């Protein structure tokens, strides 16, 4: 009797980190084409619209980068934490608190040079995210309380905090909309290219990614963090202060998530709004996982998901298929990737009939 068996690999498959996500994307396309059919559209046309069209139109391409910017940042935030063995599920909340701080300081920066205005926004965002990350980080390192639960629960807390501010003290005094006061011009992130929304936030994201990549892969601190993430026991035996490393990773991750909030306020919305994130922090977990917790991978995965986002809404306009298709594709992608990534540690063995 011939059969296929799953066998553990003796070593994890290195090239698998690149090959398996691509396989996951292909399987996702196959699986979701069913959903596209159900919406009475041709999957080939739809996938062409999503994956090829942005490379043929300047506006779509730049719009994809705009959409990718927050994903780069939250993906990097999550990857940094996960790499160190700190499972920060709270990028969403940290992003929102970062946005609160940036939107709070933004209207009060009148009269300062723009460069200082922008820096103040970025630091305010980072500080906000850090404050929100500090609570679960201390609970984890001081009292060994599982950070997955605490970081997760602080997300809706932050959402309610935003809603409370916007429906209470921060309600716009002029329009009475539930949005905060507009930030001043000096605090706005300048547009990089005309006839597009691509702004200085993209530069911030790229700089953050480069810094994190250097820290993780080139610095002594990064080596220690990776060691703590791979084997806390082994790291402790080798004299590393694992709790301190977790704290640093948690705060770094929170600060980067907070910067995302500042970029959204400074470059896109110019004020705090209730839907400012819409789950970008959660998508960051998807981006980090898809990218194999590697910064280059995060860049690729962030760009891919941005393509799906932007493309699905244009497919919505062109073919009239539901805009939720974007969520269907990214959700399927997440599940399929997680499943397929198991093959870094396992392989299929085909046994011939005897």
């Amino acid at each position: 009797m011939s059969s296929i068996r799953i066998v553990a690999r003796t070593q994890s498959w290195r090239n698998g980190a690149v090959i398996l996500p691509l396989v996951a994307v292909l399987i996702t396309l196959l699986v979701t084409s069913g959903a596209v059919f159900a919406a009475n559209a041709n999957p080939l046309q739809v996938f062409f619209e999503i994956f090829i069209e942005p490379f043929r139109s300047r506006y779509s391409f730049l719009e994809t980068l705009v959409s990718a910017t927050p994903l780069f940042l939250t993906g990097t935030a999550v990857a940094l934490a996960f790499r160190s063995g700190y499972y920060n599920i709270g990028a969403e909340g940290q992003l929102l608190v970062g946005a609160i701080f940036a939107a709070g300081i933004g209207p009060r920066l009148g009269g300062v040079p723009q460069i200082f205005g922008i820096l103040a926004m970025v630091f305010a965002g980072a500080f906000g995210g850090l404050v929100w990350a500090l609570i679960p980080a201390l609970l984890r390192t001081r009292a060994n309380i599982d950070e997955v639960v605490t970081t997760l629960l602080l997300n809706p807390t932050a959402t309610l905090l935003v809603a409370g501010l916007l429906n209470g003290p921060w309600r716009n005094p002029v329009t009475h909309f539930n949005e905060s006061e507009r930030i001043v011009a000096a605090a706005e992130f300048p547009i990089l290219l005309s006839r597009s929304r691509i702004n200085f936030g993209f530069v911030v994201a790229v700089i953050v990614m480069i810094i994190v990549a250097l820290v993780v892969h080139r610095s002594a601190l990064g080596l220690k963090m990776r060691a703590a993430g791979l084997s806390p026991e082994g790291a402790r035996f080798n004299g590393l202060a694992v709790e301190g490393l977790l704290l640093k990773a948690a705060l770094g991750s929170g600060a980067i998530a907070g910067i995302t909030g500042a970029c959204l306020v400074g470059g896109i919305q110019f004020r705090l709004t209730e839907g400012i994130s819409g789950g970008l922090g959660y998508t960051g977990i998807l981006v980090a996982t898809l990218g194999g917790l590697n910064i280059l991978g995060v860049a690729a995965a962030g760009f891919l998901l941005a393509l799906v986002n932007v493309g699905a809404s244009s497919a919505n306009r062109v073919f009239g298929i539901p805009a939720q298709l974007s969520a269907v594709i990214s959700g399927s992608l997440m599940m399929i990737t997680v499943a397929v990534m198991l093959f870094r540690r396992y392989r299929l063995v085909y046994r011939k009939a005897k």
Partner: protein
Amino acid sequence: MSVSTHVIDEPGPITARLIDISKRFGDVIANDRVCLDVRRGEIVGLLGENGAGKSTLVKVLYGLTLPDEGRIEIDRAPSTIRKPSDAIAAGIGMVTQHFSLVSTMTVVENIILGTSRIIIDRDSARKKIVLLCESLGFGVDPDELVSALSVGQRQRVEILKALYRDCRVLVLDEPTAVLAPQEAETLFKAVRLLANSGIAVILITHKLHEVRKMCQRVTILRRGSCVGTYEVAQHSDDELVELMVGRAVEHANHETVKPGNLVRMSVRNLVVESRGGRILDNVSLEIREREIIGVAGVSGNGQSALVSVLCGLTRPTKGKIEVNGHDLTHGKPMDYLNAGVGRIAEDRHASVIAEMSVAHNIVLERIDGFRKAGAIDEKAISTLVQKLIQQFAIRAAPNDPVSSLSGGNMQKVLLAKVLSREPKVLVIAQPTRGLDVLATREIRNMLAFQRVNGAGILLVSEDLDELLELSDRILVMYEGRIVAEFTNSQFDRNEIGLAMTGSGSR
């Protein structure tokens, strides 16, 4: 299946025979046309280093692995064994190092579990088990829960399980690896009784003195191939080792150097409490320069806790620890490292970052000394690691992940890391556990060399031979206390063994 009557009275007819067994796992040839036979009433030794293919061979016999080629004969008739139930039906029993007992069930329940009958006659089963127990001198209460049994008793239950199913071939895979010397003695007596009653026994081991004591014939495997089958009495230990390893193995001579007077490490009245009980109870010891203190004991008598404290991983409840004048009573791992203590923990895998490279594992504990302009100085690391790989004969490249290394090479990486810092004190637990003969030799020679160079070494090992060979003094631990001390002029394997079981305390 019944045995044909006309062969049963012949002296030692072949009961089971493995012929030209070959098995590949990917590129690795685990067995290359290996032959083994075992006769009625005989104990045949199966000797070989780790990875020589011993386990693969008996797994084939027990139906756990299907061979690529080869055949099996039971009582001279070809036999198809494709799964363990086939093997059991053919009268083969196996006791591995990993027991398959349900700890929440009693001994009787465990033994009758899996005998595929619809109605089980408990009382007659119990009677049969009690009889077996008595005839073999096994002191196992058939109604006791397995969770309440010691490791040695659990092993006896595994043997009873095989016998209850009327096995005629019994495979014992490194049975003494988990036992104290006295328990091993009990086991060997029982095994001899079994052989005398006509059971064919295959004894897998890498300990020569066991082969010498128990077997007339020994089959030696090396790197998947069968070296041959030999009469044990006609070959010296050195000859057998050479057959097993493929070349002669050197012994280091360190008898001429005597311990000095300088105390390197002193531990006074150490107490570790956990959940109300004392894991370590008033342990005091001193290690001087050029001295190896061996710590013997049946596993689980506080040795692990002692090592854990002296590695900086566990805080002592009471007591005082001093190393070269530094007070390390409440020391963390980094404090121990800074005081010049080299540590090799019991669990190799818990002392490395398996997915990281050999080079990064070696420098991890002192990575702050390898920085250049904020970045890691990979060039300096590479130079150091290349040198260590040569010096310690590690068969690996600096960038190989540690997880890809064999146990022996992993242990050498750990030793290279520790010894390259020229520690004044070494705390080492189970340095050669699970390693092959050659790696064991190399590592013991390294320890002897460190001693000659002036280090004080605390050597915790479950291998009494290792302690007898290397130690200047041996301390015996029992229930968290040091119950006996021997100096190397008065080492006596029997007395040490007795002290390990708690009965010879003085």
